[in-house]
């Protein structure tokens, strides 16, 4: 199989899987086996690409020539490879968890759930491997559309209303801002291919750069920069595996990934660094981090709190990218991974708590550590990773971002990171304390752990969070190619 | 000679038209229309000679025939109005509708 075939396989596999899942809808066991099988196969296919990328190869696949020199094409580079590998790997874990969660809660329309999930994965891989902005935009929109049924899964009026906010913001920003930005780029640069060093350099100057950047930043609604972040809390109505998909596996990651890619491959780091009108991004990201953390501090609902935490963490990636130093770019890439493991653990834990006890609010969590020790242990690890405490993955990425900020003496970034770490600690630590050391309120229903697949999944991700602290060498190696290119 | 005749016909046409416009009864108008048709036939005939193209008398002939059919159609219209569904139609619009 040539590398181009591998790319095609990676994108088509989930789609084929979706068809089979739909066909097997009547037999839940077969259906879920297909899901698991597809997920595993996908992971193998995607991982098989890594040696090539590590070796500096950049395989390409041109699907169709559109018009005016545009094409539908895929091209794998380190950043995309990382994102693809992450999404493919987490899909397996997430599928295991989904089986536990969906069965545990007797959800309806499970077939639709698995089908849409597979389509979303295909779209995520499309985003990851996209070789130009058109392909990326296409995949981005499919991702949005395919996740809508997932968010609206419950189907009651309130859920559909929230899901409408989700869709409206994501689709609206992408059409109103992202697409014009792409077309603007095309009319200026004459191409939309992702090129190391950017395609806009020297073709645009002055405030126009800042404006175009703003179109991208707010057009890519999935990156959840304030004020286009509202879809993320709205999407909390979704079942937990979907939240995990949104927050860790695909959706928000696709957002920050796209943004990073735009900064590196469309604008070019050097070009942006030299352009004063692009500086606002740093401040905007810093603002989002702090504001989101403050809002998270005031939440009472566990999942909403996690959602605001995500908004803050995403802006870490944007902040890191906006620092525009080699180290910080690597930090941005690593943070995508680190946050993914940490946040998926947290959501799995939240879902497990809901499945076992139907508890959703923070104050209900008193003493729950005793009843669900595995879950809460994993939760603790995830939370520590969010704060950035060693030995968790969160520490690694924060380290790189800070190092990058010091490299360019960027005190705004340094201050923001420190302050937000404090805030993160301020909203996570009380929960951990409450869960382990408080006594349960009287009259609570007796319950144990969630179904075993769910627990298994969250333990695996928690372990991965820890492991990332120790074994991050391959990722670093991969992403340092990014730096090598931009240097 | 033809000129004088045609002017005279035109004057008659004006008179007929005046009757058609003023009414007052529907029958006056029907008659006036018929008369105007006749005058047109005459006018065409005269003008054909005036233009030295007497072969255009065909046209005058056609007008005469058509005119007859028109009048018969009107007559039949009234036959049906009076005997058939006359009761459905008020002769004058109701005050409220006007």
């Amino acid at each position, binding site marked *: 199989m040539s590398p181009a075939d591998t790319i095609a396989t990676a994108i088509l596999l989930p789609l084929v899987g979706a068809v089979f899942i739909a066909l097997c809808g009547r037999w839940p066991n077969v259906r879920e086996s297909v899901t698991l099988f597809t997920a595993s196969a996908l992971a193998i296919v995607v991982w098989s690409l890594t040696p090539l990328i590590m070796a500096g190869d950049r395989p390409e696949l041109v699907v169709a020539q559109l018009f005016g020199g545009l094409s539908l094409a895929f091209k794998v580079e380190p950043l995309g490879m990382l994102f693809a590998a992450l999404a493919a790997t987490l899909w397996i874990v997430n599928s295991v968890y989904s089986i536990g969660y969906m069965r545990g809660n007797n959800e309806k329309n499970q077939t639709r759930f698995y089908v849409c999930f597979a389509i979303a994965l295909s779209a995520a891989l499309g985003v990851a491997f996209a070789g130009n902005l058109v392909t990326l935009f296409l995949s981005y929109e499919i991702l949005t559309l395919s996740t809508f049924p997932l968010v609206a899964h419950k189907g009651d009026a309130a859920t559909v209303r929230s899901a409408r906010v989700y869709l409206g913001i994501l689709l609206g920003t992408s059409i109103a801002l992202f697409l014009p930005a792409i077309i603007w780029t095309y009319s200026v640069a004459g191409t939309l291919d992702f090129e190391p060093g950017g395609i806009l350099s020297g073709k645009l100057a002055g405030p126009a750069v800042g404006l175009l950047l703003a179109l991208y930043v707010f057009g890519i609604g999935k990156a959840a920069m304030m004020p286009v972040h509202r879809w993320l809390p709205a999407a909390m109505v979704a079942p937990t595996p979907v939240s995990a998909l949104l927050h860790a596996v695909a959706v928000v990651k696709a957002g920050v990934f796209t943004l990073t890619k735009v900064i590196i491959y469309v604008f070019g780091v050097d070009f942006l660094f030299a352009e004063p009108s692009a500086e606002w991004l740093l401040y905007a990201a810093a603002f989002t981090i702090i504001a989101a953390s403050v809002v998270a501090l005031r939440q009472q609902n566990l999942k909403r709190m996690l959602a605001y935490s995500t908004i803050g963490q995403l802006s870490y990636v944007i902040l890191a990218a906006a620092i525009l130093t080699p180290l910080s770019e690597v930090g941005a890439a690593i943070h995508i991974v680190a946050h993914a493991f940490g946040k998926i653990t947290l959501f799995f834990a939240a879902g497990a708590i809901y499945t076992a006890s139907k508890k959703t609010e923070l104050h209900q969590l008193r003493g729950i550590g005793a009843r669900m020790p595995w879950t809460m242990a994993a939760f603790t690890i995830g939370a520590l990773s969010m704060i950035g405490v060693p030995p968790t993955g969160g520490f690694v990425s924060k380290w790189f971002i800070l190092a990058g900020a010091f490299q360019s003496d960027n005190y705004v970034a340094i201050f923001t990171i420190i302050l937000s770490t404090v805030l993160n600690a301020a909203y996570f630590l009380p929960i951990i304390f409450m869960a382990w050391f408080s006594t349960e309120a009287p009259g609570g229903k007796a319950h144990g752990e969630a179904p075993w697949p769910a627990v298994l999944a969250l333990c695996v991700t928690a372990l991965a969070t820890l492991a990332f602290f120790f074994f991050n060498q391959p990722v670093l190696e991969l992403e340092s190619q990014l730096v090598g290119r931009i240097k | 000679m033809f000129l004088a005749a045609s002017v005279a016909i035109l004057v008659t046409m004006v008179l007929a038209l005046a009757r058609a416009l003023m009414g007052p009864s529907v029958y006056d108008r029907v008659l006036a229309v018929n008369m105007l048709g006749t005058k047109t036939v005459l006018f065409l005939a005269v003008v054909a000679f005036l233009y030295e193209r007497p072969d255009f008398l065909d*046209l005058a002939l056609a007008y005469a025939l058509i005119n007859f059919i028109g009048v018969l159609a009107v007559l039949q219209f009234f036959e049906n109005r009076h005997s058939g569904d006359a009761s459905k139609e008020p002769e004058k619009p109701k005050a409220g509708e006007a």
Partner: protein
Amino acid sequence: MMTVVFGIFLLTLLVITAVAIVKEENLFTSVMLTGIFSLLMAANFFILDAADVALTEAAIGAGISTVLLLGALALTPRFERKGRTGRWLALFVVSLTTLVVMYATFEKPRLGDPNAPVHQHVAPWYLEQTPLLIDIPNVVTAVLGSYRAYDTLGEVIVVLTAGIGVLFVLGLPGAVGDRKREDLATGRTYLSHHLVPQVVGRLLIPFILLFAFYVQFHGEYGPGGGFQAGAIFAAAIILYALIEGEREALTVITPRMLMWMMSGGALLYGGVGIVTMLLGGNFLEYSVLAANPVTGQQLGIIVIELGVGITVAGVLLAIFHAFAARGR
């Protein structure tokens, strides 16, 4: 000069009539005035040298159109209710349009100006070449039947469409039943018990039919042609229907026959086109129909004019019957 004076006179009458048509609230009177309007218009066309158009306007505008309007009026209210809506907007739009038209007026060529662009291009060619290429006196017929035969085919289809449309909307005239009983039941009467119209009508009908054929086949030499002949033919049958009842007329020309006339004429016309294609010419290139191109042209024009006449007569009759049948 004389033309101008006559024209001004007739046109003034025309305007007065038009205003009266719009102002009049009795729709019946309006329809009567429309007849006058058409006659005046036709007279105008005549003094402007458009003999063919004048004949058509008289036959169709004053004759058929009046009959159809009366037929529709027999089925609908006769009085207009005064409308109050949208007057000012309407006046504004209308005045605007008129001003625009007036604006153009002053750079138009004067009436009868021999140097006007229309008399310099294309038209002289028709007048010069027709005697050589087609050799029939009536240039209007030559243009209509040959140079712009494609337009005329379109026109036949327009008429056919109107026929199809009216039959579709109002329903096809049914088969012939027992006229007397039905008429008794609905209280509908015909003019058969009026002696004068009946006698005059019966006398006239053969002549009208004869005249229709004259107009049809004399179209190459004088004013006339398929459209006018078709209309006059239809008028004759309508006259018969008015006198004897439209059921009686349907026994003369049955509904099925009407359908055949409607489509047969158009098919005859189109068939000529197909035949010319098969003979190696372009669509409607009559020259290939005979060894001598001029003869071919004449033959083609005669046949397509016949097609036009048949379709027009069929459609107009079908429309008349559709309206009349609706009243039953």
